[in-house]
């Protein structure tokens, strides 16, 4: 794999681009979905259409959220993007190259942090480096920097079960970022956190992303969270999942917590909510 070697040699930290326009980081990748369909077949032979002809492209360095009701195939989309399960028909491309199995440029953050309780925080962050055999020692410094960015420096040698839920999810994000992924896929990463922690995590994630500048596909239930974080929000229909609305969020960055009371923010949220109401996902009154 030539891309693996490339990834190691690449400078680990992109220049801070918080003050710049949203320009993609050096290694951000673009993704294209061509009529991607996923049909599960149950043992009795019933067909379940999880996703129906998804057809869109994501430019390199964009933060894109996918919102939709439970069971609309969001998680299926995640697993296919990560190359973990095959598509039934159509094709997913990463920088033009078909994704058929896990790719060194793609990292995933799941809803549960999935930390290994028998490892310390730093060792958890370095897990992907070990698995990819990139040479642990070369990445220790970067792992420590990442932990520093999320405020966990003094916890790096603790076992993970000594950490709170929010801290654990931060570690999981560091573990994904230590691979310098061109594409970061996040599946409701803050779904299990309390509301206040969740808002804090949104701010922190934006801050980290502005320095890393990779492509992010962020799957969530929360309209608020999607609008706050994203350059673009894809609204999905109930199963079989299709894209109902493709909304560009052109609020300036870095966004502060109080952007939520901005009239344009409220307008975006309202627009998405109305699509959910029209599709029957939300029922007013």
């Amino acid at each position: 794999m030539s891309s693996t070697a490339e990834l190691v040699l690449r400078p680990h930290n992109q220049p801070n681009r918080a003050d710049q326009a949203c320009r993609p980081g050096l290694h951000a990748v673009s993704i294209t979905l061509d009529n991607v369909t996923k049909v599960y077949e149950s043992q009795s032979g019933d067909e379940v259409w999880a996703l129906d002809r998804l057809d869109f492209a994501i430019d390199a360095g964009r933060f894109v959220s996918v919102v939709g009701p439970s069971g609309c195939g969001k998680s299926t989309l995640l697993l296919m993007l990560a190359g973990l399960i095959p598509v039934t028909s159509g094709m997913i491309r990463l920088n033009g190259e078909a994704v058929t199995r896990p790719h060194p440029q793609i990292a995933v953050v799941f809803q549960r942090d999935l930390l290994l309780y028998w490892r310390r925080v730093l060792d958890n962050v370095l897990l992907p480096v070990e698995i990819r055999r990139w040479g642990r020692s070369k990445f220790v410094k970067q792992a420590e920097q990442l932990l520093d960015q999320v405020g966990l420096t003094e916890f790096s040698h603790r076992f993970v079960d000594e950490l709170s839920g929010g801290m654990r999810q931060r570690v999981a994000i560091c573990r994904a970022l230590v691979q310098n992924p061109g594409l970061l896929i996040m599946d409701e990463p803050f779904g299990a956190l309390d509301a206040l922690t969740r808002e804090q995590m949104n701010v922190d994630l934006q801050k980290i992303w502005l320095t890393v500048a990779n492509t992010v596909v962020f799957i969530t239930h929360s309209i608020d969270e999607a609008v706050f974080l994203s350059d673009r929000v894809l609204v999905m229909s109930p199963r079989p999942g299709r894209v109902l609305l493709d909304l560009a969020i052109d609020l300036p960055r870095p966004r502060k917590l109080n952007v939520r009371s901005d009239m344009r923010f409220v307008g975006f949220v309202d627009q998405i909510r109305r699509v959910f109401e029209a599709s029957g996902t939300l029922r007013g009154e």
Partner: protein
Amino acid sequence: MPDADKTSRSCAPQRDGAGAKAQPVAAATGPRADLREQRERRRRRNRTRAVLENASPFLISALLLALWQVIVPLAQVPQLILPTPLQIIAKIGKSYPLLLADTKVTLLEVLYGFIAAVAVGIPIALCVFYSRIFAKSIYPILVGLQTIPKVALAPLLVMWFGFGLVPKVVISFLIAFFPIVITTVVGLSGLDREMVYLVRSMGANEFQTFIKIRLPAALPSIFGGFKVAIALSVVGAVIGEYIAAESGLGYRQLTANIQFDSALNFAALIFIALCGVITFAAISGLERVFVRQP
């Protein structure tokens, strides 16, 4: 100087919590003093409780032994039926070289049996876990064989392997093997699917998945199996010695019976229990070193 004074004054309420107007140091009354007093009381109570808890097994044992020592002569139970603790201790003092030699024999049988059970049980568990065919074909046979009482095999094993070490090791192995297989399979199957997705997304192959997550996640369960197995290994070895042997603690009990030497019988019993406790403690020690509990 005035600056420093100001700083310390402005810090004081913060250090003491909101609303604490009392001087921070050496206050005889107020919340701080109350807290200190409560802490002190709690510490005293905890210390007393810890001492009591740690001493309780010894106290209870001593009490029971004392009762035994007093009641047996009072009830005029003959020594052949039930010797007193002091008689047993005296017996141990007199014949401990013999008992230690027997212990060594029995311990070796236990260890060999247990090691064989691990060496065979873990690979079989892996086959059951990774191969559906194996799980469907061999597993039911294993379970079926498990229903045969191992004691029932002992006479056959003596016929096949003679009076030496081997039949005892085999019984010990057979009896310890099954819990190791079961707990290993259960431990490996317990890993959730997302965890596998996670390491797969990092490019892990099945071997790496096994080494990095399956095995470590299964270790608590596997060690649970080891603990059951080592205790059963002792049972297996002693049963083997009952059937046919020339040394070992089980054999010592038989000869003591023939000689109507109940004190020696009890002494051997104590050493068998010690074998169990020591080997169990060894496994627990390994577990503490190598396994972090979830």
